[in-house]
């Protein structure tokens, strides 16, 4: 396998995963300016739901994916109604602290229920292994991941660009006060978007288990990557998140592959340089 292709392929799959994990946060941040650091706790919840359903109850892998989506979305609705809605007008710092508190609690709860070990996950046989096509080697699961992420991206873009709901979301991201003035119920809109975004994170978490593993520190480790994607991509921009996730995913994998000595710092370096060049992100407008 030519290494360039392999690195690109792996980086692409990793980038797709980052995109699924972060797109919800990008849209909700863009709409309400609410800094939700607990976003990856929803992803972690999705991962644990999948693991539990498969290992304990013997559900098939595909059936667990919608369950992960629904569980994360439901949990996010509860938290949004109980805590987050009081903090939409609070400062960045208070929002950060509230949601970091939730991250801590979720990590401890996961450690309490599941222990701190990596969770085992046995993929169905048709998703394992790899095949060779036109002289290039494809890992089936990564291909599957890329396909799912592409389908979701297309659905998201189509939904945002051409439905009434999507138009309202775009209006609220662009100018929340003006959208309210036009009679759009931004609060309800936001609650729905928030649930959808968290559900996508849950799905991302479920898909991540087989690729990067799952333990209680997931909520923190991937939070950092997700924040990087969101801040580099620009708030509220789906295209921006997609581009940023690809750049960061590929540069992370390429860095670890070609220059292992500095590989793990490359992603931070890329982020700092991109942010210094464009503080509002690649596609940010405000």
């Amino acid at each position, binding site marked *: 396998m030519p290494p360039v292709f392999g690195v690109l392929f792996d980086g692409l799959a990793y980038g797709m995963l980052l995109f699924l994990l972060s797109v919800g946060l990008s849209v909700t941040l863009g709409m309400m300016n609410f800094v939700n650091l607990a976003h990856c706790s929803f992803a972690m919840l999705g991962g644990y739901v999948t693991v539990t359903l498969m290992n304990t109850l013997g559900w098939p892998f595909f059936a667990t994916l919608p369950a992960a989506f629904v569980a994360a979305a439901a949990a996010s609705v509860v938290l949004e109604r109980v805590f987050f809605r009081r*903090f939409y007008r609070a400062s960045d710092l208070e929002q950060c602290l*509230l949601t*970091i*508190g939730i991250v*801590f609690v979720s990590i401890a709860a996961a450690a309490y229920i599941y222990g*701190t070990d990596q969770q085992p996950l046995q993929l169905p046989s048709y998703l394992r292994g790899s095949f060779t096509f036109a002289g290039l080697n494809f890992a089936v699961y990564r291909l599957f991941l890329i396909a799912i992420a592409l389908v979701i991206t297309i659905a998201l873009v189509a939904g945002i660009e051409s439905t009434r709901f999507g138009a309202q979301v775009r209006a609220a991201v662009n100018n929340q006060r003006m959208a309210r003035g036009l009679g759009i119920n931004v609060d309800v809109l936001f609650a729905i978007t928030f649930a959808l975004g968290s559900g996508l994170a849950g799905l991302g978490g479920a898909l991540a288990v087989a690729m990067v593993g799952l333990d209680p520190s997931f909520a923190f480790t991937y939070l950092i990557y997700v924040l990087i994607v969101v801040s580099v991509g620009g708030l509220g921009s789906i295209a921006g998140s997609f581009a940023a996730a690809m750049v960061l995913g590929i540069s992370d994998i390429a860095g670890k592959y070609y220059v292992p000595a500095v590989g793990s710092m490359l992603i931070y370096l890329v*982020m*700092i340089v991109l942010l210094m060049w464009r503080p509002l992100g690649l596609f940010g407008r405000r």
Partner: protein
Amino acid sequence: MSGDTIGAPRDYLQAQIRWRWGEIVFWLATLLPFVLTPSYLVLASQIAISALFALSLDLILGFCGIVSLGHAAYFGVGAYTAGLLSKWGWGEPLSGLVIAALAAGVFGYLTSFIIARFRHLALIMITLGLALLLQEVANSASWLTGGSDGLQGIHTWPIFGRFRFDLFGYTAYSYSLALLFIIFLVARRIIHSPFGLALRGIRENGARMPAIGAATRAHVRTIYTIAATIAGIAGALLAQTTETVSLEVLGFQRSADVLVMLILGGTGRLYGGLVGAAVYMVARDQFSGLNPQYWYFWIGLILIAVVLLLPNGILGGLSLFTRRAKEKP
């Protein structure tokens, strides 16, 4: 307060800088561990170090509005500088402290040029990124730092050649407390100077300060460098008193912990970080005695409770309480 005379700002600053009874009692109370809980002096010295670190964060967060999720970077630079000096055969604590402070200060000065240009989310992410970057650098430069095994072979000489670092932490606590007090005095003087007022102006409205002729970015760079220096001193103290340095001194966890301590105590009050550090460290000591694995459950709950119920921290809640009690009669 006298209204619109020329001397009013000066009078205001003079009134601010006067020592209050509560402050004197607070500092006398820091001597209590020597008498009441001599077996906890090691913990007390850890508290003093954390308090110093939280104080340095308060200078930029509480007084200048710079939210940093990567303040451990400067703490780590100080810790590694002091640790390496000692490892290379110069274990004299005070000069080691000065050199570590200089190293952290220089690093703070260099990075302050980046910091001063940004606000909001980009700022949070850049501070976070710098600290994570530095941690990765320290991790991969294992020939220098010992990597994930930590820095081995640190030995701190007795202070002034006389006071050895004992097992019970007498020297460690005295040393940390003395430095905390001295640096607190410096910070207090800075905050109650015209420069300190300008910082608060930047915190309240960063866009208007340039309009009245304040050199906003230069002020931010100055206070950021000062805060980095103090964080470096705190790191060096930790390295010298515990005689170990691990990668954890640069970690995100440490940046998050110090933020929690400061918020818990209350920002922008100088004492907030000190009180927060004491409460946090004592609570962690107690809870981890029960079940170390779930400490973060409690700290998470505390955070949520503080943000929901005490938005200005413990000290903010206290001052609200005393003000209400005064108004009642």
